[in-house]
């Protein structure tokens, strides 16, 4: 399959240049929706949002509305939120519990496993023509539940989610596992939804490992808004990892993370000052986690982005953020905030307050990101501006493979994660097969060289 766009010239990661067009042009936006969002695994929601049979949560995949639903028998589904008859949304509530999704338009109704049940005047108008079993809600052919999170893909040929995730799993686990190292156990305590006048990739790239943008957060670092700020500590979070080696890791599937690799011996760094119960809780979790995870406990997360549009914060704050494209220059952001479901109430309260003052449109840290992304997008739409590509030459070649942890690892601030991300992005837009999209074609090519 070929594309109308000269992608290899526009995304030249060997040279370290990327055309501004991929961030502003309607053609790229359309190609992304056709070739990328129809294939990649996308984050849809969390099982804590749909604990009981009949529970649903309306989510998005790319530009489209989908329903995450637990059917009356307990199985989880993701359906396109659009009636098979004339397309009306069959659900316009954000969440709830139901036994049927009834379309407001002509009252076709669907059971929670997606089957078309009710068709008004069926016998008179449709008998012998309409086979109801063929007109279920459109369901994602691929669905995977991982430690509470729900992921789906529209591509029946997509590899299983764990293959897609690859070795980035070690970092995602730091987001999803209990603070004391037990697997899973998180719950969503709230969701932000807001509109950004920016291209969605600016946001994804920010989380992918762009540590270079730290100066834009100078104001919060100066005044201190972290969990110990009331005790007079500056900075935007506690300094949990001051003895660790920062690592920026990229993976053949396009994921990128910024984590810290702690030394073999490392101790709990006191945090949450002025909240002795919370500090004690995290001290306890820290010790338990080291016992449970052994060497893997040395991985401590900051941020990451799972290809293409699911970003995370690992600890302070902690949550997943999905960047849904609306148009080339408009994005709908959804942030899901996480805590351990069984954490004490006082811990949850301190965390949620910190999350709110840090994250999202009302968050003192992230407001400055939104300002950057808006004006970076705006200033890239110009005719002259689009003649000049962005520079992605930071720390070219400065990474090692599987050292000290799996993946392509840089120990200095780098745009390698971004270069890798856009290489994978280009392969989706060229319509490559899954071997290539998983980076296996690339690995094979490099091995042959």
């Amino acid at each position, binding site marked *: 399959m070929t594309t109308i766009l000269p992608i290899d010239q526009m995304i030249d990661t060997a040279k370290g240049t990327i055309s501004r067009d991929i961030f502003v042009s309607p053609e790229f936006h359309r190609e992304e929706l056709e070739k990328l969002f129809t294939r990649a695994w996308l984050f849809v929601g969390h099982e804590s949002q749909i604990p009981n049979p009949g529970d649903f949560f309306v989510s998005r995949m790319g530009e489209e509305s989908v329903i995450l639903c637990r059917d009356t028998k307990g199985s989880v589904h993701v359906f396109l939120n659009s009636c098979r008859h004339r397309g009306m949304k069959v659900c*316009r*509530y*954000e*969440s*709830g519990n139901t036994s049927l999704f009834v379309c407001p338009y002509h009252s076709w109704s669907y059971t929670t496993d997606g089957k078309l049940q009710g068709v008004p005047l069926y016998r008179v108008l449709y008998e012998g023509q309409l086979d109801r079993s063929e007109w279920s809600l459109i369901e994602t052919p691929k669905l995977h539940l991982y430690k509470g999170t729900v992921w789906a893909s529209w591509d029946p040929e997509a590899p299983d989610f764990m293959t897609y995730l690859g070795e980035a799993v070690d970092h995602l686990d730091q987001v999803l596992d209990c603070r004391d190292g037990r697997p899973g156990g998180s719950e969503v*305590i*709230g*969701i*932000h*939804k*807001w*509109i*950004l*006048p*920016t291209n969605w990739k600016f946001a994804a790239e920010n989380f992918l490992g762009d540590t270079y943008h730290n100066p*834009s957060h*100078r*104001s*919060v670092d*100066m*005044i*201190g*808004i972290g969990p110990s*700020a*009331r005790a007079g500590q500056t900075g935007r979070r506690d300094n949990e990892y001051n003895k660790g080696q920062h690592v920026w890791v990229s993976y053949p599937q396009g994921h990128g993370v910024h984590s810290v690799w702690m030394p073999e011996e490392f101790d709990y760094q006191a945090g949450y000052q002025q909240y002795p119960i919370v500090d004690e809780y995290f001290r306890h979790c820290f010790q338990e986690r080291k016992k449970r995870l052994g060497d893997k406990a040395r991985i401590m997360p900051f941020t990451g982005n799972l290809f293409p549009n699911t970003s995370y914060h690992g600890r302070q704050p902690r949550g997943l953020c999905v960047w849904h494209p609306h148009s080339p220059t408009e994005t*709908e952001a959804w942030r899901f*905030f996480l805590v351990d479901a069984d954490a004490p109430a006082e811990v949850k*309260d301190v965390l*949620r*307050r910190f*999350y*709110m*003052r840090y994250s999202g*449109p*009302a968050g*003192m840290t992230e*407001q*400055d990101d*939104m*300002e*950057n992304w*808006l*004006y970076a997008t705006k200033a890239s739409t110009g005719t002259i501006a689009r003649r000049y590509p962005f520079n992605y030459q930071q720390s070219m070649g400065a990474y090692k493979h599987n050292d000290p942890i799996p993946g392509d690892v840089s120990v200095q601030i780098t745009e390698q994660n971004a270069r890798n991300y856009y290489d994978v992005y280009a392969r989706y837009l060229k319509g490559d097969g899954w071997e290539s999209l998983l980076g296996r074609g690339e690995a094979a090519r490099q091995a042959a060289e």
Partner: protein
Amino acid sequence: MTRRNTLAWFALKQEIEDFLYMEADLLDQRMFREWLDLLAEDLVYFMPIRRNVKFGQHAEKENTRQGEGISWFDEDKWTLGKRVEQILTGVHYAEEPLSRVTHMVSNVRLLEVSPSPEDATGVVVGSRFLVYQNRVEYETNIFVGRRIDTLRRNGDSWLIARRELILEQNVLLAKNLSILF
């Protein structure tokens, strides 16, 4: 029941309106520190997230709740003080250069007066807000909603002890809530 057609009632209502307009003016004139002085030490500042729910479930589920989970704002005076401090660093780029903001306050109603209009020490006042924000060149946001304030007598003036802001949006249509409401 407090009589609402007495001179004392109207005088109090006028006093409260004047206070709200003065307060709005401090914000619009970017007198942020002076504005902070109008907030009680035990202030609750709360803006829930609004959700699309089925008819009949509004009371129970439409708004996120204070003290639980995630809202747009659920914070105290310390945090608002930090927000002001951040703006005053001059490097909070979401408000640097500063936005131009006008707070319109209307539909002012005294909902509760204690102990009486003649010697009120506490009032609960309902109002509407229309906040216009314009920043840099073309970026414009209009925030409209309801406000319920609990005010506490402080000598000749008042302190805001509780502010609940019901913004009439579901998905937030602005990129930021970087201004004070």
